[in-house]
């Protein structure tokens, strides 16, 4: 491995970490969206009952 | 003055409870002695004395961990912890009592283990003994607090070593250094600095760890 490849490896790792982090945040957003939809469903159903 | 009276009462209670229960001190003694014997087989022929000092400190830290894992057991049976927290005394006195009692048992176990070490492996001079005592104070002070934190958790036997081992790294450096190095004063200074900083920090934060409101 030459010096340049090590530099690429170092920055590459940082880049991958940030991407993985963004992916985790995206997964959380999806879950939050599903939770919100569920709550909306509950409210709507409650709206129809009264 | 009141504070000292509370500390005295709590320390006497810890010593009496432990001497009556008769399970931590004998266990610590046998544990440290068997570790030393195991080290004998673990050290191949050619290794110098320094390795022995290093392993001595591993034995000291793990013996302390054994004692600290049981530190708050008496308080958890019958829920006595609540009674102590409700008492009008300053809650840090509870920590001081427990630290002094645990320190006493650790020193008692070492009173047997260190001569055995000198017999088995290598000599220990006055400075090394001072290093052992200073490190004992540090690990009991921080350990009592960490044990109180872990006590409220689920896997407390697993949690305590994880919490304590990184914190005990400076103690091991100081301890081994005071035994091995040509100019050991610096290491005693490191241990004293550690004790000063972390004993005060533990003393001040104990109340927050055991109360909710």
């Amino acid at each position, binding site marked *: 491995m030459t010096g340049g490849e*090590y*530099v690429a490896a170092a920055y590459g790792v940082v880049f991958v970490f940030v991407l993985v982090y963004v992916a985790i*945040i995206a997964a*959380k957003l999806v879950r939050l969206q599903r939770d919100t939809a569920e709550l909306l469903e509950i409210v709507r159903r409650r709206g129809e009952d009264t | 003055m009141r504070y000292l009276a509370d500390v005295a009462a709590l320390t006497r209670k810890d010593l009496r409870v432990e001497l009556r229960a008769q399970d931590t001190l004998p266990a610590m003694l046998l544990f440290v002695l068997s570790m030393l014997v195991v080290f004998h087989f673990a050290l191949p022929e050619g290794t110098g004395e320094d390795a022995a000092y290093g392993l001595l400190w591993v034995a000291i830290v793990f013996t302390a961990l054994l004692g600290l894992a049981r530190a708050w057991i008496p308080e958890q049976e019958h829920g006595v912890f609540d009674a102590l927290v409700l008492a009008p005394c300053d809650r840090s006195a509870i920590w001081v009592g427990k630290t002094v009692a645990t320190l006493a048992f650790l020193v008692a176990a070492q009173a047997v283990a260190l001569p055995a070490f000198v017999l088995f492996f290598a000599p220990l001079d006055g400075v090394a003994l001072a290093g052992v005592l200073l490190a004992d104070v540090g690990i009991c002070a921080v350990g009592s607090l960490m044990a109180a934190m*872990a006590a409220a958790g689920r896997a407390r036997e697993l949690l305590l070593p994880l919490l304590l081992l*990184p914190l005990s790294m400076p103690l091991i450096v100081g301890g081994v*250094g005071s035994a091995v190095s040509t100019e050991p004063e610096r290491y005693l200074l490191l241990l004293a*600095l550690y004790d000063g900083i972390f004993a005060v*920090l533990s003393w001040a934060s104990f109340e927050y760890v055991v109360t909710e409101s």
Partner: protein
Amino acid sequence: MSSPFSRIRGLPSLAAFAAGLMGLALLLSFFIAPEDGDQGISQRIFYIHVPIALTAYFCFGLGAWKALLLLWRGGERYDLESYVAIHQGTIFGSLTLITGAIWAKASWGVWWTWDSNQLVLFLTLFLFYCAYFMLRFSLPEGPRRARSSAVYALFGVALIPVSFLAIRLAEDFIHPTTFTRDGPQMTGTMFTAFCVSWAAVTLLAYVLYRVELVGKRLHIDLRELREALE
């Protein structure tokens, strides 16, 4: 008086600014800064490794500061902020160890060296803060977990100087360093490249911290909403 920074308060604009700064940093550290005399191109890892390490310290410091606020002033929000800050600190901590190992391999041909006080100190702190999460997962949710975590976070910050001193003293008897690597002498442009990337990485960490905080607060609000609806 609306200085340029007052407009940066919002998270999206903060993120945009961070991205811009990071771009500038990469540009500087790759193209503008001259190549290092003896280490050659591998010295450029320095521009990312050291800023990440300093950012990890920043996150641990932020976590400890929030912990102090929790113990001193009380308030549920500080527990979450301290937790997220230390979470960021651990992520950047692991990045520091990885990029540090790569740098060690490039400069000295070994993936790990006990000679670099920086790396050894970081390993200790990294283990310490991993135990922070073990503590949080072990204790039931509530004021006592918040306070214990806060106290533990404060211990972490106190551990940094003491460990650094211990590691420096440990050098004498564990094994004297075979080669000393004093701080790299930096010419003008190198130093600016370093400072810009330091600022960029710190800002990146702060943005990720804020993003995660928003996510966690949203989760808590939703849980409360759900309980209110039941």
